[in-house]
């Protein structure tokens, strides 16, 4: 397997939005390879916009995004991806008219073909379905494929936007186990946006809560669990399930 590049992603006082409308009002955090950041917040609070802004898919309005101290705020999306940011959007965007294997090959670029076999080891279900077209996969399989495809570029930091959305509890549990295994064994960094608070608290080493485009909390899961009032106010959660 190709060696993982160590990197630090720093988001500093980020202002971003769409078509002149501001969504993010000074979001700041940082993440190194090996760390796992969970992003929580109600719908419309800027979680997806934060991830999309890291990838350069929104209108940058101020602040700074840097990798290893070098600003990437002016870089194009593909350059950011090539630096080592792997993005899996909420919409999955599996290519329906390509087979599983072709979906993976389409994202391979100059990486060795052994990465495909590596993806099959991580998600054995994909190997069984490698000749099936994207539109013939279940929701869980599409999500696996979307993650596996993002891994083709050998990212140092994987950015996942609600990967469990729309999946049955059983499939969600299986996929999350796979993702945890992947992140632990590879040593890559991971930013996870997820509605399931318990999943985020179990997975993340640090958590941020977004409230109207601002960071309402930034700390460890243990610190967050000590603040039930904040959880209730920002996420509407009264008690964290085991």
């Amino acid at each position, binding site marked *: 397997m190709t060696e993982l590049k160590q990197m630090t992603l720093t988001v500093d006082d980020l202002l971003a939005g769409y078509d002149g409308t501001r969504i993010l009002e000074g979001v700041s955090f940082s993440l190194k390879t090996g760390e796992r950041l969970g992003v929580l917040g109600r719908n419309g609070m800027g979680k997806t916009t934060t991830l999309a802004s890291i990838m350069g898919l929104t209108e940058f309005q101020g602040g700074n995004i840097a990798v290893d101290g070098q600003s990437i705020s002016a870089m194009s*999306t593909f350059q950011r*991806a090539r630096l080592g940011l792997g993005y899996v959007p909420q919409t999955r*965007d599996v290519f329906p008219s*390509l087979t599983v294997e072709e979906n993976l090959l*389409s994202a391979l670029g100059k990486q060795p073909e052994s990465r495909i076999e590596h993806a099959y080891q991580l998600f054995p279900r994909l190997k069984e379905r490698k000749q099936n*077209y994207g539109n*013939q996969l279940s929701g869980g399989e599409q999500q696996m494929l979307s993650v596996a495809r993002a891994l083709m570029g050998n990212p140092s930091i994987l950015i996942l936007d609600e990967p469990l959305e729309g999946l049955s509890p059983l499939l969600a549990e299986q996929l999350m186990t796979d993702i945890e295994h992947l992140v632990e064994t590879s040593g890559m960094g991971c930013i996870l946006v997820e509605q399931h608070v318990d999943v985020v608290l179990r997975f993340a080493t640090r958590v941020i809560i977004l409230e109207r485009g601002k960071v309402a909390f930034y700390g460890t899961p243990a610190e967050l669990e000590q603040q039930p009032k904040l959880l209730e106010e920002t996420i509407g959660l009264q008690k964290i399930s085991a």
Partner: protein
Amino acid sequence: MTQTTVKPSLALGTLHTGRLPIPELIALVVGLGCFFAFPSNLGFMTEIVIMILLVLSLDLLLGYTGIASLGQAAMFGGGAYCAGLFALHIHNDPLLGLIMAALFGGLMAGVSGLLFLRAHGLSFIILTIAFGSLTFAVANQLNWLTGGDDGLYGYIMAPLFGAFEFDFFGRTGFLYSLGILLVVFYGLRRLVNSPFGLSAQGIREDRQRMTSLGFPVYRVMLMIYIIAGAIAGIAGALSAQTIQVVGLQSLSFTMSAEALVMLILGGTGRLYGAVIGTVVFMVVHHYAADLDPSTWMLVIGLMLIAVVLFLPKGMVQLVDMTRNKVSRLNGGAGHDNSK
């Protein structure tokens, strides 16, 4: 049930994606069969082969990358004039002329693509039409170089490989064109199934997704546009070398539009759809025009309507349906080759 449908691992599926030149061998056998069966129609069959090359170049753009162009004749005509002028003023070796035309077609595509590929959808289509009209007007104005309305003529091609004369019956022309088609088809088949070709298909599916995956979409599209331009240039060169005249119509909008119709007729994104569509269009056109020169367009129009209504994926859908039927009769699960 969709869960059981897989990409065909036998027959056309493997033929299409495999490294063995089996489709090319089949095409060679069919081509040679036609060569011996219809010796008095070699000129017309050469035209078909050349047109297949132009339509294949369009399939690479539209079918595999999602770039809809109505100006591919600019590169075809550019290649034709380049090969003609090269033969007239520099060297009349057909293969040298072919290489020059490929380079010129690629150059035209590269220069125009650099500007036009910044635009998307309808804007891009309009730009390609404008480029086609511009090249037509320039060729017409440069009468001293291109022959204008009279066309470019007066060059005699040297024998192919120094041994095979371009004869009056068109035997060498047909076999030469067929050989080039097979080489280009094999190259294209390898290209579209390579990671690069698949990234182009990813762009067709979702440009933004491919950008997020780290692909310089504009650069990939430009490279595809250049390759398609080079193939159109090769087609133009074959036309110039086998007919030994280059007319302004080789740059016409009609040429671009007809190539697009042939591709839609056959089916996009399959390569052999381009072959089927071109053969059907040109044969129907040929015989319908023979029967009644004033109503051939009516026949073509009716055929197009029927295909669009009943075979929305083009005539290749008939091949898929037949294969599925055969597979079911043999007890197989059937295939959904919906690409």
